[in-house]
């Protein structure tokens, strides 16, 4: 490159370069300031002035983001289920505090269902004078429309109404559900927002995709805004049919990606309620914080150990080995050491209170390594056994790896040598569902209040939990079938009792702890935080304390 090309220019540059840098920076700043001021003073907003805040705002922080959208028939995420339980009215609902007795009562239905003798036709009277949030009247046609929509829309949660073949309009305020097979659990399934009526005119006007962005129901709250990844805003529906449940506040469902930040935001006062499966160490400091209170929903999830009885060649094929493992587990120690006592030990039946739990369920005997060793010797393993334990480190709680390590220690005392396998979530779920793991740590939670919702999943040979342990038992299949086709409570209690006894004999599930659901809140900022049932909360009870 000939030198004359750059030499003079370089001289020029050296003289002006620094000046130019400063000039450029100064120019940017000045232009920015001028632009801002001009924009601010001369631009007339085309939008109408914002209406004054009519309701105080309660901010609920959560790490449960909207997975797909807000459509009750599409998104089956716990967070959205909870929101849709207040934006939509299911036909029935569980009475708050269903435990220990399970009581279902009508919400949008006017009365209990009338079931035909063959159990195949359910006639349900509907509440009159109810309107959807967009003004559309609620009637039998809307119920039929909603059911048909659920079956045609890309709905993954439609399985809860698998037993229903069709819905007929009997008259303006009566519908008839026609079933494929008798299903005593239908009333329980109808408590879910998935099955709740949606506004037919809103669906038709908005189209599926837009309806999913801000769906319209009959519930006490209505969706106002969904800022993707940030928050969902709900406002009271003033025309709600049940005056005692018209909300007194605006509710903002604020999404956090980091539960530690959410905890800080609650302590600081940026949010009023925090709802999440935080690390139990965080729970502890929050439980002892004098400025915070908590509402607990017991029986949220069960963390359990699954013992696969169907892998050929695995020592776990032998029921004595499975019982030996059961005897070696010390639930109390797991609760104390790993969960700091925040999640209580679970030595009960997987059938929750209200689900006809068998009181005499005594499968989970006190920890007894000596007897466990004896059982192993009986089974032909005097020198102990080697078993692979699989778990996934994040999805089921941050403590799971510690649970695995403690189990390894506990089981070693009986000569059961665990090899720990930490598996990435997606792979874990895939293999777990396929029943490829001889021993794994999983969780179990009910969807709706009916014992069949547990039985058909964990005991029936076609249940998705049963498949994880390759459970295939004729007696259990029969009992599940009987339970779901019987409506008499006394008979059902007997059937589910027998079913639990059979499950205890097979020893494929070892519950470890109850993963309770906590809502932490600042009592100075919000009142009326309470648990409802499962992971649900009746947010319409929220209010600002009188003093503020």
């Amino acid at each position, binding site marked *: 490159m000939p030198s004359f090309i750059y030499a003079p220019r370089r001289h020029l540059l050296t003289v002006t370069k620094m000046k130019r840098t400063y000039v450029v920076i100064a120019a940017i700043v000045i232009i920015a300031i001028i632009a801002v001021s001009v924009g601010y003073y001369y631009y007339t907003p085309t939008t109408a002035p914002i209406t004054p805040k009519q309701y105080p705002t309660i901010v609920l922080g959560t790490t449960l*983001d909207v997975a797909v959208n807000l459509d009750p028939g599409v998104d089956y995420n716990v967070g959205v289920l909870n929101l849709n339980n207040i934006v939509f009215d299911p036909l029935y609902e569980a009475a708050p505090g269903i435990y220990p007795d399970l009581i279902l009562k009508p919400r949008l239905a006017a009365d209990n269902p009338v079931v035909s003798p063959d159990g195949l036709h359910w006639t349900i009277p509907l509440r009159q004078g109810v309107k959807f949030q967009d003004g559309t009247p609620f009637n039998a046609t809307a119920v039929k429309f909603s059911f048909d929509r659920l079956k045609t829309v890309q709905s993954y949660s439609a399985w809860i109404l698998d037993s229903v073949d069709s819905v007929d309009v009997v008259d303006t305020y009566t519908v008839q559900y026609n079933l494929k097979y008798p299903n005593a659990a239908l009333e329980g399934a109808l408590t879910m927002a998935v099955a709740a009526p949606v506004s037919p005119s809103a669906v038709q006007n908005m189209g599926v995709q837009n309806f999913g962005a801000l769906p319209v129901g009959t519930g006490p709250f209505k969706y106002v805004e969904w800022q993707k*990844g*940030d928050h969902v805003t709900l406002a009271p529906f003033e025309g709600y049919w049940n005056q005692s449940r018209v909300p007194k506040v605006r509710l*903002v469902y604020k999404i956090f990606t980091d539960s530690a*930040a959410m905890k800080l935001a609650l302590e600081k006062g940026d949010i009023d309620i925090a709802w999440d499966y935080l690390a139990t160490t965080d729970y502890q400091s929050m439980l002892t914080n004098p400025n915070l209170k908590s509402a607990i929903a017991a029986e949220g999830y069960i963390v359990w150990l699954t013992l696969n009885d169907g892998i050929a060649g695995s020592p776990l094929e032998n029921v004595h080995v499975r019982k030996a493992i059961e005897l070696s587990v010390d639930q109390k120690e797991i609760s104390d050491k790993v969960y700091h006592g925040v999640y209580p030990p679970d030595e009960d039946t997987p059938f929750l209170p209200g689900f006809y739990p068998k009181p005499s369920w005594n499968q989970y005997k006190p920890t007894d390594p000596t007897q466990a060793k004896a059982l192993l010797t009986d089974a032909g393993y005097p020198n102990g056994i080697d078993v692979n334990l699989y778990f996934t480190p994040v999805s089921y709680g941050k403590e799971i790896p510690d649970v695995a390590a403690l189990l390894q220690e506990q089981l070693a005392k009986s000569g059961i040598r665990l090899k720990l396998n930490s598996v990435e979530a997606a792979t874990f779920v895939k293999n777990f*569902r396929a029943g490829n793991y001889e021993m794994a740590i999983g969780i179990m939670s009910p969807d709706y209040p009916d014992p069949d919702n547990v039985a058909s999943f964990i005991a029936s040979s076609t249940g998705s939990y049963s498949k994880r342990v390759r459970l295939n038992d004729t007696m259990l299949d029969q009992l599940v079938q009987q339970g779901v086709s019987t409506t008499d409570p006394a008979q059902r209690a007997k059937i589910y009792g027998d079913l639990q006894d059979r499950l205890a004999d097979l020893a494929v599930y070892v519950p470890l702890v109850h993963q309770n659901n906590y809502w932490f809140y600042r009592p100075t900022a919000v009142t009326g935080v309470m648990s409802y049932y499962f992971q649900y909360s009746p947010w319409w009870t929220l209010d600002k304390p009188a003093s503020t």
Partner: protein
Amino acid sequence: MRLRTFILLRLLLTIPMVLLLVTVVFVIMHILPGDPVLAVLGSKAASQQQIDLLRHQLGLDKPLYVQYLEYIFGLLRGDFGNSLVRQDPVTTEMAIHLPATVELTFWSMLLAIPLGIYSGVFAAKNVGGKIDASIRIGSLVRWCIPVFWFGLVLQIIVVQYGLPLPIAGQANPRIVGVPEVTGLYVVDAIWAHDPQALADAFLHLILPVLTLGTTMAASLTQIARTNVVDVLGEEYIKVASLKGCTDERVFRKHALPNAMIPILTYTGLQVAVLLQGAILTETVFSWPGLGRLLVDAVGYRDFNLIQGCVVLFALVVSLANLIVDISYAIVDPRVRF
């Protein structure tokens, strides 16, 4: 080569680069275990029938090469496909989350560039002294602290000392929404004549921008210092001093402009680092930007969304590099196209 030809060539070169990148991401995503269908349906409820149905609906039951070719041909038409989980177009999803990231990175750069370059130059000016040592150590320490940890510490400090700063999110949900025009909260607040919302938007920016901006500033400081020190040792600096220039004049007119050239390159390359830092910053501060969208998409194995984000990031980085190359021609007269 004319400048126009150069730009055209560079732009053409981004096409094979993006294709290669998409291919790599596609292969990685399909080799890695995990299934978007199971991620959507959850582990509990779905029957095999539902799983198969959804897999078919999403086109995931087709042979891999068919999926790949369909995706590539879609890309050539500017079609990024639909998000597997959210079901709407990937471009829509990205458009929703882009403004938040633009806002975060813009203010971070605005903090990082002057801060980094100035402190680097300041250290070089006092080379060997106490100021130099403290700036060097300070920036080195800051550079070594992971973004997410630094962010968390800032949050804890704010809470501990009761500072009136928000610790997460992009806006206070208690303030009734400013109508969205651009999606950039600061701009929208000005647009809506809402000083309260404007103040709120700036307050929400402080911690994330401090976190991301100082990370970038720390590395810029190091580079700026090294380059200025190097230039100060050059022969022409001695010549300038010998011919009677004052120290200040030597520094300003002879040393700085020459040191600026590599600093400028480095600043351009920092865009990639900035985007990477944005992913972490957005996660710590629950900032609804592209980085978080990408993280969520990876969690759900939403192949199309991941590929869309990666392509967008790649385009931004290559655009930044192109701008650096062009600005070379302006700053350094030896560079000719």
